[in-house]
C-alpha cells in the first residue's frame, strides 16, 4: 500500500470512518473534508495502546512516547489526537525521529513507507526491546514489525505478527487480533482463536 493508493479511498468511507472514530469524545474538531489517511492511521495507533500490554519495565517513565520515523505529517496528526489524553496513565508524547537510536525509549514506533531494508535494520536495531513497531508496507511483517497497515477494499486494515510481539515482550489483546485482517504466528488451537472465532481463517483467505 502506498500513500497514493490511500488517496483512492473514497471520500464517503473516510467521512464515515472519521465520524465514527473522532467526532465528539476525542474533542478534536476534525472537519469532515480534512480527514486524511494519515489521521486514520494516527487514530488506529492511538487505539492500539488499549489492546497492547507492555512489560512493566518499559513503562517506568512518566511519559508514553510514540516515535514517528520521518513522517512529520502523521506525527502531527497523532500529536493532535493524543493531546490531553493519557496513555497507560502516562502523558502521551509524539516525536519525529530519523534514526533507530532515537527510538530506544519509545513505546511505539511508526515506520512510514520507505526502504524495506532500512526498516529491517531499524527493527533489528531495536533488538527485542519492548517497542510496538507499526509499519505501513506491503511486506511490513517480514521486516519484523508487529503491526502492519494495509488497505483492503479501499479500507484501512492491519495485520499483526504475534512472533514479533513475543520477541518484543508485548502482549496483544485477542480483541485486537479479532479485528486484525491477518494474524501471523498464531496456533490454531489457541484459546484466543476460539474466543475470537479464528480470524486466522479470515487472514488466510
Amino acid at each position, binding site marked *: 500500500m502506498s500513500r497514493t493508493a490511500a488517496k483512492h479511498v473514497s471520500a464517503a468511507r473516510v467521512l464515515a470512518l472519521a465520524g*465514527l472514530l473522532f*467526532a*465528539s469524545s476525542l474533542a478534536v474538531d476534525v472537519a469532515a473534508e480534512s480527514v486524511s489517511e494519515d489521521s486514520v492511521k494516527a487514530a488506529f495507533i492511538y487505539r492500539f495502546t488499549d489492546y497492547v500490554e507492555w512489560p512493566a519495565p518499559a513503562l517506568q517513565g512518566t511519559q508514553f512516547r510514540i516515535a514517528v520515523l520521518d513522517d512529520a505529517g502523521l506525527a502531527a496528526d497523532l500529536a493532535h489526537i493524543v493531546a490531553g489524553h493519557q496513555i497507560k496513565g502516562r502523558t502521551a508524547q509524539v516525536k519525529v525521529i530519523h534514526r533507530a537510536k532515537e527510538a530506544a525509549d519509545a513505546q511505539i514506533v511508526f515506520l512510514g513507507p520507505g526502504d524495506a531494508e532500512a526498516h529491517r535494520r531499524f527493527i533489528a536495531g531495536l533488538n527485542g526491546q519492548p517497542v510496538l513497531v507499526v509499519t505501513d508496507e506491503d511486506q511490513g511483517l517480514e521486516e519484523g514489525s508487529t503491526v502492519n497497515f494495509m488497505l483492503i477494499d479501499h*479500507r*484501512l*486494515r492491519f495485520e499483526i505478527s504475534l512472533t514479533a510481539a513475543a520477541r518484543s515482550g508485548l502482549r496483544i489483546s485477542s480483541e485486537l487480533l479479532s*479485528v486484525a485482517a491477518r494474524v501471523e504466528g498464531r496456533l490454531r488451537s489457541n484459546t484466543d482463536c476460539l474466543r475470537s*472465532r479464528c480470524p486466522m481463517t479470515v487472514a488466510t483467505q
Partner: protein
Amino acid sequence: MMSWMRSWSERLRRLRYSVRGKLVAVVVATTIIAVLVAGVAMLSHDLTVYRRSWVSDLSTQANILALSTTPALLFDDRDTATRNLNALQARPEVQVAAIYNRSGALYARYVRDGANPPPRQLSHPTFGPRIAGERIQLIQPIMQKGEWLGTISLNARYDVQGRINAYFGIFGFVIVLSVLVSLVLSAVLQRVITDPLDAMADVARQVVEREDYTPRAEPSKDIEIGLVVAAFNRMLDEVQHRTIALKQTQEALREADRRKDEFLATLAHELRNPLAPIRHAVKLLELPAADERQRQWGRDVIARQVQRMALLLDDLLEVSRITRGRLELKKTQVDLPSLIAAAVETARPLMESKQHRLETRLPAEPVRLQVDPLRISQALSNLLTNAAKYTDVGGRIALTAALDDEHQLASSVADSGIGLSPQAIPRLFEMFSQVASPVDRAEGGLGIGLALVKGLVEMHGGTVEAYSAGLGCGSRFTIRLPASVVLKTNIAATASGEAQPVPHAGHRSRILLADDNRDAVDMLALVLKMAGYEVYATHSGHEALDVGARVRPEVFILDIGMPEISGYELASRIRRQTWGRDALLIALTGWGQREDKERSREAGFDHHLTKPVDPDQLERLLRDIAPFPTDRLRGTDRGRTGPSRPGPSPL
C-alpha cells in the same frame, strides 16, 4: 334413540336433584376453580418472569455483542461486526440485530430468514427494552471508556401468546385429569354420605309402595347421619305402631258399627213385634160381637205388649245412660235377701211360664250392702231373666249368694240351659251382642241385658263373669261385689222391714190437670176419676190458674209445653199463690233429660214424669208421695214384672 335420550335426560335430572349430583358438582366446580386460580397465578407469574428474564437475557446478549463489537467499531471492521452478529443464529428468537455507528447509520446487521431488515438509519433511539405485541426491541449504546461508539439494536420474538396457549393447553389437561381424579375420589368418599341416605330412601320407598312398616335403615357410625338414621327408624317405629293401632281401632269401629246395624235391625223387629197383637186386640175390641171374655183377653194382650215395649225402651234408655255416664247411683243400706227377693219377683213370671225350678241359696248370716238396691236387683233379675230365656221348659235355675274369705259378695245365677260356646263368652257382655236363639226367637231381645248387668255392677266397683262348660251344658253368671260395699253388721240391726216403705199418711183428693192436648188431659182425667180422685181438667195456663184459685187442689199435674204460659211458668206462678205454696206439683213432659228435670225443679215442681205416663205409676205416686228410694223398691215389691223400669224420678 328417543328413549336413549330420555334416559339420559332423566339421569341428568336425577344427578341434578340428588345429593350425589350436588356433591359431584361441588367437587368438580371446586377442582376447576382451584386449577384455574392456580393456573392464572402461575401464568401471570410466569409471564412476569419470562419478560424479566427475556429482557435481561437480551440485554446480556446486547452487552456481549457490544463488547465484542467494540474493536470492530474502533478499527472499522465491518466484517467482524457482521460476524459477531451472525453468532445470533444460535438464538432463533432473535430476528434482527443491527449495529449503528455514531452517526446513526446502519453499520452491521443480522437478519433472520423471513424477517424484515432493520432501518438504515437510527435517529433519536430510545434505549432500553420496548415491547410491542409479539416483538421485543432492545436498543443499547456501545461505549468504550466513556466514548460513544455506536448503538446496538436487537429485535426478538416476545412469544407471550405462545406461552399463554401452551399454558392453557396444560390447564386443560390438568383440569381434565384432576376432574377425573376428583370424580373418582368423590365417588369413593361420598359413599359415606350417600349410601346411608340411599338406604333410607330405599326403605322409605319400600314403606310407601308396599305399606310395609317393618324394614329399617341400617344404623350408621357417622354422628350426624347416624342421628338421622336413628330418628328415621324411630319415626318408622312410631308410624308402624300407630298404623297398627289405627287398624285395630278401625276394625273395632267397623265391628261396633256392624253390631249397631244388627242392633237397629233387631230393635226395629223387637219394636214391631208387639204391634201385631195390639192391632189384633184393638180390632177385636172394636167388634160389637165380642163378648166380655174376649174383650178382657184383648185388654190383657194390649197391656202385656205395651208393657213389653216399655221394658225394651227402658232397657235401651238405661244402657245409653250408662254408656254416657249419665246414670247416678243412689246408694243406701239394704239387706241382701230383699235385693234377691226383688230380683226373683221380677223374673218370676217368665220362669213360671216356662215351669223352671228355682233354687235359692243365701248365706246364713245377715248381709247388708251399701249399694243402689234398684240397680243391683235389676242386675240380678236380668241374669235370672236371661237364664230363664235360654233354658228350656222345666229346666233348673240356681241363685246363690255367698261371702268369700275376703268379704266379697259373690252371687251366681246358674242354669241348665243351652250354654255358651267358648268363643261367645268374651263378647257376651258387649253391647248389642246376643247369643242367637232360634229356638226361642220370641223371647229374643236386643242383647242389652248383659251389657246392662256389666255396666251396673262395674259402677259398684264389682265384676261380672260368665262360665259355661260348653254348648248344651248350661251356664253360670257370677256377680262379685267388692268388700267395700259389704257392711259389717250385727244381728240386732237387721230387723226386717226397714226397706219396706211407710205409706204416706196424707191423701190428696183434689187434682188439677193442665194440658193443651185435650185428648191427653181428658183421658188422664178419666183414669184418675176412676181411681177415685176429684179431678179438674184445664187446657191452658190461665184456665189452670183460675180453676186452681177456686178449688185449691192439693195436686197439680202440668204439661210443660203449653202455649202462652209454659208449664215452668205456670208452676212458679202457682208456687207464688197461697193456695199453691204447699201443693204437690208434678211435671208431665216428653223430655226426660237431666237438664229438663233440673229446670222443673227450679220452676217449683216436686216430681217430673215422662210421657207417656203410666197410669199405675201416677196412681202410686199420688198415693204415697214417699221419698226415694222406698217408693222405687216398692215397685218391685208390688209384683212389677219389669226388671229395669225406672220409677218416677223424684227431684
